């Protein structure tokens, strides 16, 4: 048995040399993960709205078809918005990827098991909803291809990355929602966003 993947290493590998990649992270551990990889304006880490990360990614991908959009979220957050996978399947945004960092736990509330601990296969759900690619990943050797798909492949892509259930030091992004929104828009749209 290979060593299990570790979430921070997975997220750091996916965000390496991220260039203009637009990133939305679900609340809790994945928000800390993307922040640990670097707190930059083109991150939109959620502190609430559980279940909505993938849909924020869809709205962004449809608004910015020339940019690549990555949603990184947890298994608990994705389970709360499973219908959004069907909604994304209808729209077929080629520039959107959804990556679930799956530790099979609700990490912020006491590490209670989620449905994926009993085998709920989110990748098969995504495939059935019409994602162009959807896979479960358990080995580090698969991450380079996933990163390449996120940055250039014709999506929508989905990956459920199984990771070790571990409690890590929190790396917190700013909490002010207005700030997170405004800095994201300014970095993406330029100064004109302030006059919109």
């Amino acid at each position, binding site marked *: 048995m290979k060593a299990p993947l570790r979430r921070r290493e997975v997220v750091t590998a996916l965000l390496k040399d991220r260039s203009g990649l*637009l990133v*939305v992270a679900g609340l809790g551990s994945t928000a800390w993960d993307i922040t640990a990889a670097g707190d930059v304006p083109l991150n*939109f880490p*959620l*502190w*609430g*709205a*559980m*279940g*909505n*990360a*993938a*849909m*924020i*990614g*869809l*709205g*962004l*991908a*449809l*608004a*910015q078809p020339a*940019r690549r959009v990555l949603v990184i979220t947890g298994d608990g957050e994705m389970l709360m*918005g499973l*219908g*959004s996978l*069907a*909604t994304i399947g*209808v*729209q077929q945004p080629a520039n959107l990827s959804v990556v679930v960092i799956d530790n099979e736990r609700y990490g912020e509330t006491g590490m209670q098991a989620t449905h994926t601990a009993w085998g709920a296969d989110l990748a098969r759900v995504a495939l059935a909803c019409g994602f162009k690619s959807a896979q479960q990943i358990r080995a580090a050797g698969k991450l380079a291809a996933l990163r390449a798909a996120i940055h250039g492949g014709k999506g929508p892509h989905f990956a459920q990355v199984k990771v070790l259930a571990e409690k890590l030091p929190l790396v917190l992004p700013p909490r002010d*929602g*207005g700030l*997170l*929104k405004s800095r*994201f*828009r300014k970095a*993406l*749209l330029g100064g004109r*966003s302030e006059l*919109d």
Partner: protein
Amino acid sequence: MKAKDWPDQVYETLKGAGVRQVGYVPDAGHKRLIELCRADKQLKSVVLSTEEEGIGLAAGAWLGGARSALLMQSSGVGNCINALGMMQECRIPLLMLITMRGQFGEFNPWQVPMGQATPGVLTAMGVVVHEANTGARIPAAVDTAARLAYGSYQSVAVLISQAVIGIKSFQDQAAR
């Protein structure tokens, strides 16, 4: 243009307001407007599996520099409550067009609690409510709501009265 043609006028109003994405959960009262939006290839029309998804869609659209509108019936408002908090905290504009049930002459008692609670629930979550009680008033209500939403970064809902939409009678349909 006649009052019954309000969906056509609302469509023009949304286009004039620069709306580029329309999320919707179908309602009979929005049938015509949804058809107009879907026929417009310049608009991204997004069918949602639940109304809450439309809040995320609108947030993502705004992050990407696009204006949007969200169509639903009043029963869907309850599905949006927690997500509405994001729009308030982030000061992201939101324009909701809501057709009312559980209001005038409702036949389905299960629609009444959410329909009656709709203005209060929206207000509690910081959404500004504009009520339109006749077809003739709807386009102007949508226009001012869009101006408030996108001019002042507010969440704004236009409630389209059941007096405009008409009463759905399952008893009449069953008798036919």
